[in-house]
């Protein structure tokens, strides 16, 4: 499915509000699951406010675990996690963090529109306003004609796009994405990549983006962090030497290939550890 009516670089959400991002600092972070599996240990990472960081790493290394810790959905067993400015999470207000899970996790009893509007609903935004916002963002992920359907009637890729729309609808200050585009075809994917980057440029939120695609990481992020196999350590932390303006043709340029190769090697190093 394409986004035939949206220009390739159109931002994913309206632009009236840009609160800026947050700075995240992880220090000596440890997470051991009951049963004794240590997934993160001594992890150090600093993410500058408003930066776009991609996370790469082998399957099962702890990327989702890390994202859950940052989102506050799980508690570290050691170490600290600080945000500045601190994220006050007052209930009933627009949540400052949004999260696209690895699986879509939609509410099966809600239509696509009502699924996408959920975060605004929980923040107390009135019905017409939140529905309009949800409709707009669904339009932009290419689901403008599926707003009335139910999750069971969608394809896998469509479900993930609803999940993405749900995350973007709040215009968050910290956006956590766990392989959001893995179930999409390459064209939709690169189009959403472009829109995501445009949105980020505009709103300036902090983005943590887990992906398995080296090309996607290279194209999207300012900075890529490559993790080793479990327990995850940082193998490579690289600010990419690429122009700030990303265009579609960048993918064929030599600088792009060079960065990709570096990431590839780091991944291999991380797996061999």
């Amino acid at each position: 499915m394409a986004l035939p009516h949206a220009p390739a670089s159109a931002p994913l959400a309206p632009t009236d509000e840009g609160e800026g991002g947050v700075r995240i600092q992880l220090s000596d972070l440890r997470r051991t699951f009951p049963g004794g599996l240590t997934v993160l240990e001594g992890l150090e990472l600093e993410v500058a406010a408003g930066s776009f960081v991609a996370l790469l790493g082998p399957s099962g290394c702890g990327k989702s675990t890390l994202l859950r810790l940052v989102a506050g959905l799980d508690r570290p067993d050691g170490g600290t996690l600080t945000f500045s400015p601190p994220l006050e999470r007052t209930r009933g207000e627009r949540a400052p963090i949004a999260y696209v899970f690895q699986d879509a996790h939609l509410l099966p009893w809600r239509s696509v529109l009502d699924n996408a509007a959920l975060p605004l609903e929980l923040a107390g935004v009135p019905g017409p306003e939140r529905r309009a916002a949800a409709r707009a963002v669904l339009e932009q992920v290419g689901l403008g004609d599926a707003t009335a359907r139910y999750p069971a009637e969608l394809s896998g890729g469509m479900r993930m796009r609803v999940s993405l729309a749900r995350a973007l609808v709040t215009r968050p200050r910290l956006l956590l994405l766990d392989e959001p585009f893995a179930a999409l075809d390459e064209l939709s994917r690169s189009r959403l990549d472009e829109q995501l980057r445009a949105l980020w440029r505009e709103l300036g939120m902090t983005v943590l983006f887990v992906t398995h695609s080296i090309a996607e990481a290279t194209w999207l992020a300012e900075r890529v962090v490559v993790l080793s196999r479990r327990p995850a350590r940082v193998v490579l932390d690289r600010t990419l030497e690429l122009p700030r303006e990303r265009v579609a043709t960048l993918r064929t340029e030599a600088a792009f290939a060079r960065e990709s190769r570096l990431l590839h090697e780091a991944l291999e190093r991380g797996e061999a550890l």
Partner: protein
Amino acid sequence: MSTASARQALAPLAALVILLSLWEGIVRALAIPTWLLPTPSAIATAAAREARPLLDAALTTGRSALVGFALSAGVGVFAAVVLSSSRLLERALYPYTLFLQTVPIVAIAPLLVLWFGPGARAVAVSSFIVSLFPVIANTLTGLRSVEPALRDLFRLYGARRLATLWKLELPAALPHLFTGLRIASGLAVIGAIVGEFVAGFSEGSAGLGILVLSAYRQLRTDLLFAAVLAASGLGLLLFGAVSLAGARTLRRWHPSASSGGNPT
């Protein structure tokens, strides 16, 4: 499609006819005396003869059962919500709600009558007591079965407790809840009847419970069964209403309500 749905609507009727014929046949073949187990035709005759009092009694009992059922549904869901709010609370109190299920109504009849007065109110309370637990138990399981990832989602978006309840937990618990209500529908009727045994009164409009007792005493087994079947009829009405509501609510999203069923 329409023939299939017609067949589905007719299925219970067809089954009824078959069941009744079997019953009639067996009773006749074994020459079981009417006072022990009457044939459906004998029951029908008795019911026709006593149509008026039966109907009145069914209405009286039905009203009480309906009130009891409504109370169970409301209080049961509420109690389940309270219990589900903490594992500790559930551990501490859930087992004791079972008391309602194990107490013979006759044992607490004096209290019922004292607190609610004799007649319809005490009967409705009896119906409520008997039918409450399944609603609590099923709703609680439902509330507890919410996918953890969806809970995370609501937590992330700072959902208030009440919003999580209304928009996540209760919808997710609906399939369980409807099963609880289905069970409660039958129990509400028997609860009303048993309540009438001990707190119902025959002045004015006596319920089916009184009719059952006095027909039993007189060995009017045909009338007894007519009354019992009238009670089942009430139960079926409630059950049907619950099932219909369940099917409508869950239709588009829950496998248990899909018309497909088992493909093999």
